[in-house]
Each structure stands twice: as structure tokens, then as C-alpha cells.
């Protein structure tokens, strides 16, 4: 068990211009923490993980595991175990041999290997399958063998590279919970890569959001959701995504479709002191509501209603300036509006509005 730190770590792929797959990454992972690296494809999250594993060179900066600088240490010297997206199980070995391979290479006595493999197999419900080859297992079982192979090693850090992406939706949700529980129980520092923000939010103690190789924000899931550091994080975290529109600024608030949506004073003054005439206005679907006819609200034409059972998502068009923008509102599932209906929507509370700089995307509200 150990803490992990990236200190200005970069990976640059040759080419013209060179691609900075991971750019000056600074990240500290505490001992026993479950950290999730999340981002769209090409964000450098897998590369960052592979740099820690020693499978990818570190071109600038350093990486430390525990107090040891491992920047130039080969993979086998880093005391880490990795679960691959493809699981990378050795096809010619049985489940038990797969799980015990690392110990066998280390020269661990056979009885001890058997003991440890049996222990891990019991934990993962694999005891029945120890003599089978990977190809005789289902996707979920293979995934568990890959986990087992990592656990048996008792490494100081677990690395997981999208380990659930080859499972079907139901199994994924189940396994998600199992991995989180297992990590809790073992208390091993874990770094987990995913492109799925739901996985990131549900599993991570902290979540690091990457985009184009640059760390955008690293914080608890709650903090990412409530206070996204910039417009990218705001749009990436949360499902359905936050409504993010660039709108003109009025003295008391943001101007949408003729009305002015009041904003918090601190936010407004921040925007005004920056000398902005427009802002990127962000509001989550659940921070919007349907307004009654008498109330002041934003006119919206309903284009799509997605009923989810407990609630419904109403997609509609709102006029902003000369064009029209799509908004999503989360409403009570029992009384959704009809398709094509004209409704009025309003912001539940001014404090739930996020404001971002229209060009840099930086958060203006605090």
C-alpha cells in the first residue's frame, strides 16, 4: 500500500506537431484512495495510467510510488498490478495458473501459491472455475479472473484500465459495486480509468477529469457536480448533461428569450468586473422546472419527452438571440407535458446557476 504522485509528468508522442498525450500532469493519490481518471477518448487517461505502470515512457517530470521515484523503473520493479480492458488472460493457462503466474515467477513455494489463489478465488466466487481455461468462461467470469490475478499479487497499487467496458449493462452495474466494495475491503490504492462518468461518480473517492492530456479538475464526485471548475467539466459530469448556453449579460442577470434570469450577486459582479458582455450560462436539468402560466418564465417548445419512470426529461427549443437552443428539463414523471406543447420553464434557485467565462470556460461563480 502506498501513495502515488505524478509530478509534472508528460508523455509526448513524436510527430509534427508532437502530440502531448499527457501534459504536465500533477496529481497526488493518497494511500488507500480510489481515484478515477475520466475523460473522453483521446484525453490521455489511459496513457497516464500506462505511464504509472511503466508501459509508457515518461518524457518529462517524474512519477512516485510510495516515496520511491519509479520514473525509470521497469514495470516489474514497481509493485503494481493492472487489470486490462481486454483482461489479457493467458489463454493457455487455467484460471488458477493465471492467478498464480506472478507468484510463480517470484519463486513463491507452491503450497503458498495455492493458498493465496484459493483465497482470492473464494473472494471472487471463482473456486468452481479454477481448473478451467479462460475461453471456457463467460465475460463476467473472465473479468473476475483478471481482478483475481491482481489481488493475488498483493501489490501496493491497483491499476484498472476500463475493466468493465466489455460487460453488458446489467453486469457492469453489478460489477461496479463489487469492485468498489472489494477495494474498500482490501484498502489498496487504486487508480481506475474510464470514459463513463457514471462509473467515475459512483466508484471514485475522488475523480480526475482529463481533456486533451490536461487535468481539468480533481475532486470528490459531489464537488465536481456542484462546483465544476470549467464549462468542460460541467458538461462532462452529469447525465443528462448540464444545459450550457452562451447568453448576453444584463445588469441584473442573464438574458434569455426576452426575460432576464436573475443571478447571484457575487457571480454577477465577478462577470461584470471581468468586463464581459456575455457569459456561458449553465444549469442542470433538475435545476429547471416547469413554471405556471402566470409566472415569468422562458418559453420553450417541447420537442421530445423521455419518460424514465420516476421522472421525465423534457427536451425543447428556447429562443436565444436570433437562434434557438435546446434545453433539457427534468420534471415529475407523472405529469409530463405533451410533444409540441409550449411551456414555460424557470430556474429553481439562482444559486443553482453556474456561470463560466464565454471564451476560457473558467468558472466565474464560486
Amino acid at each position, binding site marked *: 500500500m502506498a501513495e502515488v504522485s505524478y509530478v509534472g509528468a508528460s508523455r509526448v508522442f513524436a510527430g509534427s506537431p508532437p502530440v502531448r498525450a499527457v501534459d504536465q500532469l500533477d496529481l497526488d493519490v493518497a494511500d488507500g484512495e480510489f481515484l478515477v481518471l475520466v475523460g473522453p477518448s483521446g484525453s490521455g487517461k489511459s496513457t497516464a495510467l500506462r505511464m504509472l505502470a*511503466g508501459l509508457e515512457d515518461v518524457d518529462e517530470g517524474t512519477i512516485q510510488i510510495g516515496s520511491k521515484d519509479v520514473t525509470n523503473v521497469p*514495470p*516489474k520493479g514497481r509493485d503494481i498490478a*493492472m487489470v486490462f480492458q481486454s483482461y*489479457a488472460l*493467458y*489463454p*493457455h493457462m487455467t484460471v488458477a495458473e493465471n492467478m498464480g*503466474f506472478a507468484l510463480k*515467477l517470484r519463486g513463491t513455494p507452491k503450497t503458498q501459491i495455492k493458498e493465496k489463489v484459493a483465497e482470492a478465488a473464494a473472494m471472487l466466487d471463482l473456486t468452481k472455475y479454477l481448473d478451467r481455461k479462460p475461453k471456457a468462461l463467460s465475460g463476467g467470469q473472465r473479468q473476475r479472473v483478471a481482478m483475481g490475478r491482481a489481488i493475488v499479487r498483493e501489490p501496493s497499487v491497483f491499476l484498472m484500465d476500463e475493466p468493465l467496458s466489455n460487460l453488458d449493462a446489467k453486469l457492469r452495474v453489478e460489477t461496479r459495486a463489487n469492485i468498489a466494495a472489494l477495494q474498500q475491503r482490501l484498502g489498496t490504492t487504486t487508480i481506475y480509468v474510464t470514459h463513463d462518468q457514471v462509473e467515475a461518480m459512483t466508484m471514485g473517492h475522488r475523480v480526475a477529469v482529463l481533456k486533451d492530456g490536461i487535468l481539468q479538475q480533481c475532486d470528490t464526485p459531489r464537488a465536481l457536480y456542484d462546483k465544476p471548475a470549467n464549462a468542460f467539466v460541467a458538461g462532462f459530469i452529469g447525465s443528462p448533461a448540464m444545459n450550457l448556453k452562451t447568453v448576453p449579460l444584463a445588469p441584473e442577470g442573464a438574458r434569455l428569450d426576452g426575460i432576464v434570469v436573475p443571478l447571484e450577486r457575487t457571480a454577477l459582479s465577478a462577470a461584470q468586473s471581468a468586463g464581459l458582455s456575455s457569459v456561458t450560462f449553465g444549469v442542470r436539468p433538475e435545476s429547471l422546472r416547469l413554471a405556471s402560466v402566470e409566472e415569468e418564465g422562458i418559453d420553450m417548445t417541447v420537442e421530445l419527452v423521455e419518460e424514465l419512470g420516476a421522472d421525465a426529461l423534457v427536451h425543447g427549443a428556447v429562443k436565444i438571440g436570433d437562434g434557438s437552443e435546446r434545453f433539457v428539463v427534468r420534471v415529475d414523471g407523472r405529469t409530463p407535458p405533451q410533444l409540441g406543447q409550449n411551456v414555460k420553464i424557470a430556474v429553481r434557485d439562482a444559486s443553482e446557476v453556474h456561470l463560466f467565462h464565454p471564451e476560457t470556460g473558467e468558472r466565474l461563480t464560486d
Partner: protein
Amino acid sequence: MTVLQTSRTDPTPPARKGRRRATALSGTDRIVLLLMVGVPTLLHVALVWVPTLSSVLLSFTSWDGIGDLDQITFVGTRNYVDIFTAYPRFWPAVQHNLIWLAFLILLPTSFGLLLAVLLDRQLKFTRIYQSVLYLPVVLALAMVGFIWQLMYEPNLGLVNNVLGIAQSSPVDWLGDSDINIYAVLIAAGWKHTGYVMLLYLAGLKSFDPSLKEAAALDGANGWQTFWKVTFPVLKPINVIVLVITVIEGLRAFDIVYAINRGRNGLELVSVLITDNIIGESSRIGWGSALAVILLVISLGFIITYLVQVFRREERT
């Protein structure tokens, strides 16, 4: 929902439905299919099975190949008995074939594997190396024989000149019946190495790179990764290479025929077959018996191996 509705509105009565589905091909489809399956089958039977079975039948007869078919006289197993007991060229030829096989399995196969592993490491100009090493494979063995005849020429050939013995005491590589089989094997191996290399290279290219990464993280060094992970995972390629090597070893013919018509230390079973069937003696029955012996040996090797492989597959 939709599935239920369509099956309900299906106008075809249920009894006929099954029959219709079984023959859901249009007339043209059937003709095309019949031609595509039939023509190759006919060709295969006519060009492979008929000659094979005829050879087996002819091996029990005595016939000089001249004149009508009523000249063929049935002699039972006499050809076989005579080949095994009273044919001086037979056992040396079998021995040469076995040497050939052992050599091909040991040297070119392992060397081809080594080259494949080296070329798979994304060297610069790897394509050029691959092409150069594969080039001998596309040459006919007779051509290879011709090229190496020039190499082995006692006074002007490259080999003796490089060794510096071309003038003083030249070795007649192909003329000396004690060593010429090995000289020819080097030429044949030169060709076979490229073939094996290409097969292994194809296997390595389709190899999941994360397996090697997993092995590296598990603490394996390069040597352990290769022998404990890469090589066992390439098992299907190993099977193909072995079968091809056995076939190459047993059917070798053209290279020795191009060099000295397969005499003077270069006798092979295939040469004896050719000599007896199309040579001056023209003993069709005798030659056929030799051919059947070779066929049985090849089948023995290949069937044994395949049965073992499939049994092992089933057990897992």
C-alpha cells in the same frame, strides 16, 4: 410485439412454412451454388482422388505403362516385398528423407522463429528485411537448386572462395556423396526459413500486445515472457509449421533433381518414384508402390499429430 404481429399475419400455413424455409433459395441461387460446389468437387475428385486411388491399385500390379490396360497383371504385394527386401536404393532414400525432415524441423524452424521475433520488434526497415528473407520462398525449388549449384561450384563458386580453398583444395560440395545431402539441405533450409518466418510473423502480429504487458507487470523478463506466454499462445501456428515442415520434408524432389537428378548421395523416395514411373525402366506398378509408401508415411505423421492436437483441445 412486432414479432408476434408478423407471425400472426403470415399468410403461409404453418405446415408448409418449415418446408419453405428449408429451401429458401431461388432457382438461380441453387444453380450458382451447385456450380460453385460441384465444379471444384469434380476437379478435386478427378485430379486428386482418382490418381491417388489408381496409384494404390496400380501398386499391386506389374505394368510397363506401354500398350493397353489389359497388359496390367496383378502381382499382389510382391512390389512391396521386393522394395523392402531387394531394392538397394530404397533404404538410403528413406534415410535421406528422414535426415531431411529432422534438419528442417531443427534448424530452419527455430531460425525462422528467431527471425520472426526479431522482426516483430518494430525495427527500422523491417519491411525490407522481411521481403529479403521471404524472397527464396517464392522461388521454385528447382531454381533454388540452380542458384546453389553456382554457390557450391568447386573453383568459381562463392562458398569455396569465401573459405579460401577454391584454389588449394576445393571441396566438391555437391559431388561428394558424403556431404552433398547436407549442402543441399542448407539450400532447402534457406528457402524454408523464410516460409516459417512469415507464418510466425503473422502469428505474432495477431498476438494481443496486452498479454506481453501483463506478463511484464507480473514480473516476467523477456525470456520468460517468450517461453511462458508468447510461444504457447502461438500453438496454432506451431501446428501449421510442423505440418508444413513434414510435408516439405517428405515431398522434397525438385531441388535434388535439378542438381544431379537425385543420384550419388542425393537419393530421395520421391526421386525413386519419378525414376520408376517416367524414367527409362518405366515400371508403373513398382513406382506406384513407392508412392503409396510415401503417402502412408506422410499420413502417419500428420494424422498422429492432428489427433494429438485435437484431443488436447477437447480436454481443455
